[in-house]
């Protein structure tokens, strides 16, 4: 009996220990940046370094908005991520429906081809796309990023949507068609609404993919008016100066949207990621 009690006690302690490691690993960098963003310049350059801000200040946030057009960067990131998400969802839901539901010869080959696109190194595509966008005068525009990002997320979104479409019972669709719907009508009125959670999941993945992308954004949109956040954040550093408190404040502002997205939709994100990972 006593041994049993002991066992339960250590198992519980082990659980706390495991939780502490996972939480510290996941949250520490963001937490450290948050703490840094409230420190004064003087406190930051004092040695030994402090962990908790001694005189919390919001001056760094004011500087972050003053030194760079941070709202513009946020807006640009949002337009590009949202725009490519809409285009990706449109394209991939059509393709996924065809693959999951219609009488399509060689459907596995088609799905594999779409997924193989994601194996293509983005850096490799960057060189010709740079030249093409330059030729089309699309450098420094939202389209220069929206189009390539669509292809970036197309494979994972198609994969997620195919698995969701396959789970919807065929009878529902047939019933709608017997009741007078066309096949297209059945798709839009029955299948898409039922697959809404899948569409949502795919959308979040596409949004985060575009929100995070750096290389193409850095290469194609160098003008401040079209810079996205990951590139804009790099602009705080001067030739020799590295205003860490200001950068930290800007990072905190820039992370808020993504943190909100994963806070609200965490279960969907996980199901989408693992659907892609386990089946891909």
């Amino acid at each position, binding site marked *: 009996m006593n041994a049993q009690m002991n066992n339960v006690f250590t198992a519980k302690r082990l659980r706390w220990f495991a939780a502490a490691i996972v939480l510290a690993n996941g949250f520490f960098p963001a937490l450290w940046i948050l703490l840094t963003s409230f420190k004064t310049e003087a406190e930051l350059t004092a040695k030994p370094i402090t962990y908790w801000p001694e005189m919390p200040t919001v001056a760094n946030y004011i500087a972050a908005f003053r030194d760079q057009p941070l709202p513009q960067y946020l807006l640009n990131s949002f337009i590009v991520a949202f725009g490519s998400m809409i285009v990706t969802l449109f394209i991939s839901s059509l393709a996924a429906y065809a693959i999951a539901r219609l009488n399509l010869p060689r459907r596995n080959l088609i799905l594999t081809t779409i997924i193989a696109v994601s194996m293509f190194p983005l850096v490799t595509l960057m060189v010709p796309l740079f030249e093409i966008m330059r030729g089309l005068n699309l450098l420094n525009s939202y389209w220069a990023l929206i189009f390539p990002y669509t292809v970036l997320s197309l494979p994972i979104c198609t994969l997620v949507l195919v698995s969701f479409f396959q789970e919807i019972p065929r009878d529902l669709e047939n019933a709608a068609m017997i009741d007078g719907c066309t096949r297209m009508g059945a798709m839009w009125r029955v299948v898409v609404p039922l697959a809404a959670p899948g569409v949502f999941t795919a959308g979040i993945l596409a949004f985060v993919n575009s929100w995070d992308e750096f290389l193409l954004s850095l290469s194609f949109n160098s003008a401040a008016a079209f810079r996205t956040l990951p590139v804009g954040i790099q602009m705080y550093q001067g030739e020799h100066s590295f205003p860490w408190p200001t950068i930290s404040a800007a990072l905190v502002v820039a992370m808020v949207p993504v943190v909100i*997205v994963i806070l609200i939709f965490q279960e969907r994100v996980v199901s989408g990621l693992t659907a892609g990972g386990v089946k891909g």
Partner: protein
Amino acid sequence: MRHPGPRSRSWFDRIADPSEKALAWLLLTPAIVFILAIVAYPVSTLLWNSLHDVRLLTAQGARFVGTENFALVMSDGQFWRAVRNTMIIVVVTVPGALVMGLALAMLANMPFKSRGPIRLALLLPWAMPLAFVGLIFAWFFHSEYGIVNDVIQRFGGEPRIWFNSPSLTMMAICIATIWKTSSFMALILLAGLQTIPSSLYEAAEVDGASKWTQFTQITLPLLVPSMLVALIFRTLTAIQSFDIPYSMPGPGEETQTLAMYIHMNAVDYLDVGYSSALAVCMFILSMATTWIYLRYVRSDSK
């Protein structure tokens, strides 16, 4: 029956309610168009450019040079240094992220009362842009005010000037990359862990197998499929490492990766011919890696 015979269908009917096969291809058309425009066509111009002298800085048109660009690449010391740095990142961070991800997945798989915070702790690194991670870790490894040196000093060690030394910079880059990528690995492996029926462990428990035996005989073999998929993707993205090394520069261009070198030639020097040849080399490297993995998968399943 709602459908009249095929002969009596008007063109309007045919568009409004096409046959199933025609509809399937119609629905696939946007995806095909995008893949052709954003992948296939650029790749063909990439191959063409790699065989030409194309510089956007000079007004002169493209000149066919055959394999001259590739000969230049092969004798380019900066290219080989970039390849070496990239391979270091691949060789260190892919196994690193796997071990770290497996550890995190095992820890996160414990029976907690609320899974929310644990899940968030795994999702946050995944959702954080790589470029941000690079900046944050550059701050961690700051020689004067960084927390890494502070901790080293508290334990009585010598603080390092991380970004003055190529090897220390590579170490910092690898640590940042492992942190960023291990959580995605953990999410995939966690999903794999949750598909393992607990009856297997109960049976092993009855047979008196130790925890370690259970781990090596049950957990690891059953995780191999999810591991392989995650590993292929991780390796391919590690070959393309750009954001983190770019945000954590070492001395000069000592820690340049292949992707950074391609970017420099294309965007800074506007030397499309040469950067295309470099990009083709990276493509070959990626394909070779995928091929090795697939070969392993095939020989493993036999």
